[in-house]
């Protein structure tokens, strides 16, 4: 085997042009494929990032004002949501609803610590809000509101990374007391949202907020997540229709009244995004397959020409005692050798350039309305390796069949081959 490798290295060294052409076809095929898949992923990730880590399947409900007189009520009546809405939703729609969380919004007021301050929105929330809003709390940054906070109506607060930076600079925030609109809270956690580094909203326990601000069981809005029983537009529409009817009935408003109760259903935009992603996926795979095919054709062609060119050499080798198998082995191992090395080079270059490019497409931090068209254009390394292996196999087969043919040529004919 060592001897064979020496023989092959010698051949490669003395036939640099041929080696380079074969290798280039392989490296280029892999490189293009990875850049392409990377670009596709970049587009997809860009779209996905605009939805952030917030759950895709969240429905939000706000109270509004009636537009249509109904059940003896005048129009213009304010609809206030309360915890009973949570109860009937989770009780009657448990087939579709996973998490449900009420929420009181106190608007934007001053949050301060010592001499530092900023304007922050304050919400009273339940513990599962962290999931619904897609908040992240890293190790060492405390925790989110928990059940104990709710039960004991603790005066604790979770602030954003940005608020922490402004108020505390590099000091630790956990355990410190901050002032929100004249009321003192203890910081228990610092959260961040992946693509919204500028978020400044703060969270306190729902029960605490109801007590402090004397809200009783009233809530500003609530949100719930839908489970896998809602999986397309039809199931989503059907669910929303029956849910609207039911909540209209509970609050005694006309089912036709669009202004009485407001809905936000991210599932619809999620579906749109999923469709776009699916489309990008299909497009990328089609182009990718063609790229790979053209790579395979390129490598095959070069192997075909190479083997044909070497027919006479094979004849000479056979005349001095090379068995057909040994020649086949020579061609195949050389082909594997070249395609593997250059495939690896293409792989490294492709992955390198996608990683390099992804530096330029950092998630934008321009705020809630920012839009990422392109983000993290990298490739799953498994896919890249699989594509490389495929090309290596293709290159080998591309060498194998012409070599098999060349080997079957009678020695004397191979020798007379010009």
């Amino acid at each position: 085997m060592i001897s064979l490798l020496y023989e092959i290295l010698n051949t490669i060294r003395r036939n640099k042009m041929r080696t380079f052409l074969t290798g280039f076809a392989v490296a280029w095929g892999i490189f293009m494929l990875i850049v392409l898949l990377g670009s596709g992923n970049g587009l997809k990730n860009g779209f996905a990032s605009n939805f952030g880590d917030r759950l895709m399947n969240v429905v939000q409900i706000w109270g509004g004002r009636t537009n249509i007189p109904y059940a003896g009520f005048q129009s213009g009546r304010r609809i206030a949501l309360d915890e009973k809405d949570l109860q009937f939703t989770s009780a009657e729609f448990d087939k579709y609803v996973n998490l449900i969380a009420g929420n009181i919004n106190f608007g934007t007021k001053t949050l301060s610590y010592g001499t530092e301050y900023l304007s922050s929105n304050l919400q009273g929330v339940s513990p599962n809000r962290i999931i619904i809003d897609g908040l992240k709390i890293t190790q060492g940054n405390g925790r989110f509101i928990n059940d104990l906070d709710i039960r004991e109506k603790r005066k604790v607060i979770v602030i954003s990374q940005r608020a922490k930076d402004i108020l505390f600079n590099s000091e630790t925030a956990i355990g410190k007391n901050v002032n929100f609109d004249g009321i003192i809270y203890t910081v228990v956690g610092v959260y961040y949202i992946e693509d919204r580094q500028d978020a400044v909203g703060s969270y306190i326990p729902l029960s605490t907020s109801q007590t402090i601000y004397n809200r009783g069981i009233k809530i500003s809005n609530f949100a719930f997540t839908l489970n896998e029983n809602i999986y397309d537009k039809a199931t989503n529409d059907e669910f929303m229709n029956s849910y609207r009817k039911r909540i209209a009935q509970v609050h005694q408003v006309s089912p036709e009244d669009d202004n009485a109760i407001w809905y936000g259903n991210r599932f619809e935009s999620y579906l749109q995004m999923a469709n776009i992603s699916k489309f990008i996926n299909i497009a990328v795979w089609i182009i990718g397959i063609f790229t790979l095919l053209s790579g395979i054709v390129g490598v095959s062609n070069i192997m075909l020409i190479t083997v044909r060119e070497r027919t006479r050499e094979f004849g000479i080798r056979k005349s001095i005692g090379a068995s057909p198998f040994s020649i086949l082995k020579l061609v195949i191992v050389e082909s594997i050798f070249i395609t593997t090395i250059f495939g690896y080079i293409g792989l490294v270059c492709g992955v390198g350039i996608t990683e390099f490019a992804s530096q330029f497409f950092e998630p934008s931090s321009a705020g809630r309305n920012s839009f990422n068209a392109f983000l993290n254009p990298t490739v799953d390394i498994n896919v890249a390796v699989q594509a490389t292996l495929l090309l290596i196999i293709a290159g080998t087969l591309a060498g194998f069949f012409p070599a098999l043919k060349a080997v079957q040529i009678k020695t004397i004919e191979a020798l007379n081959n010009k």
Partner: protein
Amino acid sequence: MPTIIKLENINKTYYNGSPLHVLKGIDLEIHEGEFVSIMGASGSGKSTLLNILGILDNYDTGEYYLNNVLIKNLSETRAAYFRNKLIGFVFQSFNLISFKNALENVALPLYYQKTGRKTRNKIALEYLDRLGLKEWAYHMPNELSGGQKQRVAIARALISKPQIILADEPTGALDSKTSVEVLDLLKKVNETGMTMIIVTHESGIANQTNKIIRLKDGIIESIDDNSEHNFSSFGFQNIK
């Protein structure tokens, strides 16, 4: 001397286009250590015969015994084995591998005998030295003259210590002076006991050999002893 090559009624037809019956019943016996030339007009089947002897080509009917082994319908692998062990070739067009230097070309038969790289390069260098080509060992074939190329080819044929050397017009591409040198070389090789069969057009070359086989239209016209080396292009001089 024991028989090394025995042909019985060998027939060979080429079937490209209209069939061409090239060898029409060849009977021949060659003994170990003989120095034989094959002559004949162009197209008489000399190369065809030599290729069959070298198991580079097959024949249709008849029997060919090499070292008392019937050479018929061998697999390519078997044929390669026999070529490697028993036969050395010298071709008119040298048939050196262009991207290998002289040393590597000479050493190649030993590669197929699974000799280690160091050993085979050492042996190859010895052979090149013996043929006066030591300084040219690391030159590529295109840097060598015709005579040098043919000497490299001879070194390659000799390195596996074959029993037979088959040479198809080994001086065909060389000038007269180089031809003489190459032939002297082959003669010396023969003197070490190796059987030598040379296809040639040149009577001067043939006259150096000990036995002359004349082919005509696919049959052996004559086999003449030439141990006296008194053959001229016009036939044997009648000294008697």
